[in-house]
């Protein structure tokens, strides 16, 4: 869930609660106020009637278009004893004009005449108008509060988004960040927390880059430093082999040593090459024809692997030339082809398709589909150790593709391993 949604969600419940309480309080206050007002009217009205009645003046008509009604009745002494003097109540009364009962506010007042008899005046004011007012107020208040709620949400969302923009910028930056392409975040925010975040993230990027650079240099430097000791070792073996007094077994042993040395030297060279690719040391580009490169390489490989009896089919669907470093392209094609020969079984097939912008190499193999996530890892050899593969060939292919803006995909279909290079 997004942070904004999260914040709005947790804001909604308390806001609704507060607004509801607020509305309720407002409603109660307002209706009390209205009742008070009516009670005041009733009091005035009854005072006037009592005064007039006691003075024997003409009393107002019971109904003078205001629907106010009253009556006076004598009260017995027992009744007087339990009465509080003035009492208010709500009651439905019959209004002759409306021909029906309507809610009304009723006031009972006890008073004494000069002769000491106790009388009760009951005054009634219909309150259906007041109820209408209250329900209108209630509707408007509800509408107002809901509208307010929405406005508050909208304003909050806008303000929140605005203020968290630096956060999203940092996240976006981190999403796009790939190791080895150092790019720091610009700090154009005045918020202390975000400034702190930017500084911290930048510090981490610096540290990661430094470690990465260090590791990258280390492999290159280590391979480079190994060159001379490897040369010495190899040459000492060669010197020894020149000795004519050696027996066959000694010479064979030396020969095996020499072969292992050669493998070691090749491995080291490959690592050095890989490190050079990753350090972008192959910058010069020329127009390279993939078709020509492929035919040249297959000629040599077909010769080297003649004994395997592999049938090779090349389908030049279209010429494909790319602007790239020739040495890298040559190594790319050579590694892919070697891979197809090396992991093939005797009498297997290799099918090569060249189209504009894509090269596919499909080979048969005794091996099952390979885990595509690990395929390009350095020294990944799958489940077999049968051949002397260094396990670096496909890492080189991947590194070259990355360095030359090419895409490499691997698929396994119809018992064939298919590698496709495309633009």
């Amino acid at each position, binding site marked *: 869930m997004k942070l904004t949604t999260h914040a709005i969600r947790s804001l909604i419940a308390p806001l609704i609660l507060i607004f509801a309480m607020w509305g309720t309080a407002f409603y109660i206050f307002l209706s009390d106020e209205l009742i008070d007002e009516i009670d005041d009217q009733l009091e005035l009205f009854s005072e006037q009637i009592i005064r007039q009645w006691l003075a024997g003046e003409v009393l107002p008509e019971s109904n003078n278009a205001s629907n106010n009604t009253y009556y006076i009745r004598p009260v017995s002494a027992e009744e007087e004893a339990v009465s509080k003097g003035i009492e208010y109540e709500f009651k439905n009364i019959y209004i002759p004009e409306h021909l029906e009962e309507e809610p009304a506010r009723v006031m009972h007042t006890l008073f004494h005449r000069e002769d000491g008899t106790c009388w009760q005046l009951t005054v009634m004011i219909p309150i259906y108008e007041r109820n209408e007012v209250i329900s209108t107020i209630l509707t408007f208040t509800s509408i107002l509060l809901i509208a307010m709620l929405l406005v508050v949400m909208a304003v909050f969302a806008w303000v929140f988004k605005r203020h968290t923009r630096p956060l999203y910028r940092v996240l976006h930056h981190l999403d796009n960040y790939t190791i080895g392409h150092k790019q720091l975040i610009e700090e154009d925010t005045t918020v202390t927390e975000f400034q702190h975040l930017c500084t911290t993230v930048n510090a981490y990027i610096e540290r990661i880059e430094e470690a990465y650079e260090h590791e990258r240099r280390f492999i290159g430097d280590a391979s*480079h430093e190994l*060159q*001379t000791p*490897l*040369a*010495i070792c*190899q*040459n*000492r073996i*060669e*010197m020894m*082999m*020149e000795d004519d007094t050696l027996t*066959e077994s000694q*010479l*064979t042993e030396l*020969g095996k040593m*020499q*072969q292992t040395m*050669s493998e070691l*030297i*090749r491995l080291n*060279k490959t690592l*050095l090459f890989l490190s*050079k690719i990753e350090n972008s*040391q192959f910058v010069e580009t020329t127009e390279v024809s993939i078709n020509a490169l492929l035919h040249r*390489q297959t000629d*040599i*490989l077909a*010769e*080297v*692997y*003649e*004994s395997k009896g592999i049938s090779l089919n090349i389908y030049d669907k279209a010429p494909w030339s790319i602007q790239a470093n020739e*040495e890298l392209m040559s*190594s790319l094609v*050579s590694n892919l082809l*070697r891979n197809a020969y*090396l992991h093939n079984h005797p009498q297997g097939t290799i099918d090569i398709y060249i189209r504009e912008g894509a090269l596919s190499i499909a080979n048969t193999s005794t091996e099952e589909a390979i885990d595509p996530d690990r395929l390009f890892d350095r020294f990944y050899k799958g489940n077999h150790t049968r*051949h*002397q*593969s*260094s396990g670096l*060939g496909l890492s080189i292919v991947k590194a070259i593709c990355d360095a030359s803006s090419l895409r490499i995909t691997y698929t396994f279909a119809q018992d064939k391993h298919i590698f496709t290079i495309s633009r």
Partner: protein
Amino acid sequence: MKILIIEDDLSFQEILRRSLEQERYVVEVAPNYRTGLIKLSDYTYDCILLDINLPDGNGLELLREFKEMKKESSLIIISARDSIEDKVEGLDLGADDYLAKPFHLAELLSRIKSVMRRRQSGIDEHITYGNVKLHPQRTEVWVDDTKVELSRKEFDILLYFMQRPTRLVSKSMLAESIWGDHFDGVDNYDFIYAQIKNLRKRLTSWGASIEITGVYGMGYKLIDK
């Protein structure tokens, strides 16, 4: 023939010296820039092997100084750096050859012979062993005074052997130099055997005095019968 080795790694220097002395060269060594410069200005050598990474200076700088002395010596750079840029820079400065470490001693010896031949005979260099004469530039082979025909691959193999006669050439060394990286990971050297077999047949049919002999199943040697 006098050769100067300017190389700071003493063990490597010793190997090079011993190997060259076996070939009856007179060898002198310099372990650093300073000594190298003194020897270069004081004496004259037929060939100089120069390492680029020296403890007290850059070999390329030494090469520049040497070129200003206008001496008639061949110079081969031996360096742990093998990028094309490094090679081009070294050759542009006037080195006759550039050999990246690690290399085979046999390779070094044939390069030394090659640069010295070039210096002596100009462009038209050729290698002779027994009654066989080989022109690397023209890719021609002559037996006695008859020109013979052979395939490009066979020519490359013969050239490789002619450059290092009587020396043991292991199958992996041969494969590496003729087929480059392509044979990386190959577990069977049949393809070499097939080529050698053809070449042997040809040498016999031409009446050549040289032959390729097997050495305990691990390599070959070119010898004069």
